[in-house]
């Protein structure tokens, strides 16, 4: 069952066209990667889905056309977007950040047990539970951002450049945790990453974008095998 379907999506920043007929689909419970260099339009694709940026074409989530919906409405449908740069609430504590993530939920007990779960998965967050988000390191903030998104119990997680600004070992830790979350929750994911190696940790298939267009699509195995991908995105 297809959870998310993008068909010929276009997007503009002012007069500049950033997306030019981008298409992809994410099956229920599946994980798809969006790869490509800087400026290829990866982040904009996620923004088009979460409603942060206006787009043309078709964006179907769970059979519903979500184009033109405001971010709050898209979130309410079960899409959690972890933006580039983490988007933490710096002046709020870890605890408060997590609670904001769970804003739309009404099940108190469920929220409490999910917080426990996430603190188990990300022990650093437990140590800094009452600290302000802005006082944490990049890696910790990334974990917080992912945790916050999971608190919403989404059906689809949009992950934008989770490795940005992180030391390689930290980035790997973060991705390992995300992989574990995926295994345990079965959430569908759309992962934007410049570092294809990390993305392949999690995703089953991927599409490569270049100047706003799909240039390659395939399963992880297929892509890892292709010379172009290896050279451009996997370091040869």
């Amino acid at each position, binding site marked *: 069952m297809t959870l998310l379907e993008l068909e010929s999506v276009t997007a503009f920043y002012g007069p500049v066209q950033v997306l030019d007929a981008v298409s992809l689909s994410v099956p229920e419970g599946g994980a798809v990667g969006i790869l490509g260099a800087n400026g290829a339009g990866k982040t904009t694709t996620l923004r088009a889905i*979460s409603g*942060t940026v206006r787009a043309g074409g078709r964006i179907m989530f769970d059979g519903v056309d979500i184009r033109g919906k*405001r*971010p*709050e409405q898209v*979130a*309410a449908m079960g899409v*959690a*977007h972890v*933006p580039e740069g983490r*988007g*933490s*609430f*710096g*002046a*709020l504590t870890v605890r*408060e950040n997590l*609670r*904001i*993530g769970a*804003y*739309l939920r009404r099940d108190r007990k469920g929220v409490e047990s999910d917080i426990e779960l996430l603190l188990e998965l990300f022990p650093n967050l437990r140590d800094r539970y009452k600290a*302000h988000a*802005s*006082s*944490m*390191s*990049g890696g910790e903030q990334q974990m917080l951002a992912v945790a*916050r998104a999971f608190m*919403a119990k989404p059906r689809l997680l949009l992950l934008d450049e989770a490795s940005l600004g992180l030391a390689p070992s930290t980035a790997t830790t973060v991705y390992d945790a995300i992989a574990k979350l995926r295994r345990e929750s079965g959430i569908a994911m759309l992962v934007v990453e410049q570092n294809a190696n990390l993305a392949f940790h999690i995703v089953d298939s991927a599409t490569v974008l270049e100047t706003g267009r799909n240039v390659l699509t395939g399963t992880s195995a297929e892509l890892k095998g292709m010379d172009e991908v290896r050279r451009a995105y996997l370091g040869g």
Partner: protein
Amino acid sequence: MGQFIQLVIDGLSNGSIYAVLALAIVLVNQATGMVNFAQGGMAVLAAYLTWWMTEHGLPLLLAILLSVLVSFVVGGLLERFVIRRFERGDPDTAVVVTIGLLTLITGICGWLWSYNNKQFPSLFSLHTVNIFGAAVSFRSIGTFLVIVAIMLALQALFLGTRFGLALRAVAINPDSAALSGLPVGRLLMAGWGLAAALGAVAGALVAPQLTLTPGMMDEALVYALAAVILGGLSSPIGVVLAAWMIGVLENLAAVYVDFIGHDLSVAVPFFLIFVVLIVRPQGLFGRKAVVRV
């Protein structure tokens, strides 16, 4: 000794006036990230509305409640249609917008009701009670208690409730808040609406003492801003304590420090701000903003 107590009591009474405005300013700041210079003006407009209703026969309490409701709505509408487009931009432009709003609102009051003083009925009686040799009016006590109640309510709202947390989140990072499903627009309007409602209460409390004129809250606004800086933008308790401190110290300085006297006592809060900020830039009770680069 009696004079000292009297000065302190009067100072607390004045300070309460600044405190209630300061609370409204903190509320707007916590909810929308802006400092609203028009807060006092909005309170005055609400007070005029209340006065106008009492002039047409409505009982005072009902008039106050009605103007609190109207203020809530007007505050929300102001945010949506006047302030919204400046919230994301340069904070200094936002300040100028609120200054413009202040001028406009004061002007509306002046045009509709002229610049002459009007007598505003008092919610509490003016009978006095003797406390440690000082004469304290019921009105002062009543104002004091109302403010303490509001302060505690705001503190509880921000720290304890989902709604308060949502208000703060929207001010800190509206984009992320939207991505978590928070109804950003409605929360922003609610923040301004609440602050305006608070201002309406403030106006009704102080108008009897200051007499109603369009510029009634101008001086109080300056003191309220001083209290906000001293107390820290994020702390309702902090700004109330700061406001009381300003009121009391100002009174004491006027009498006990010869060279200041009554006319220059206005210098006291500014001097305080200076001293405190040099030592503790985040204010007495504010939280230090640590930003990891």
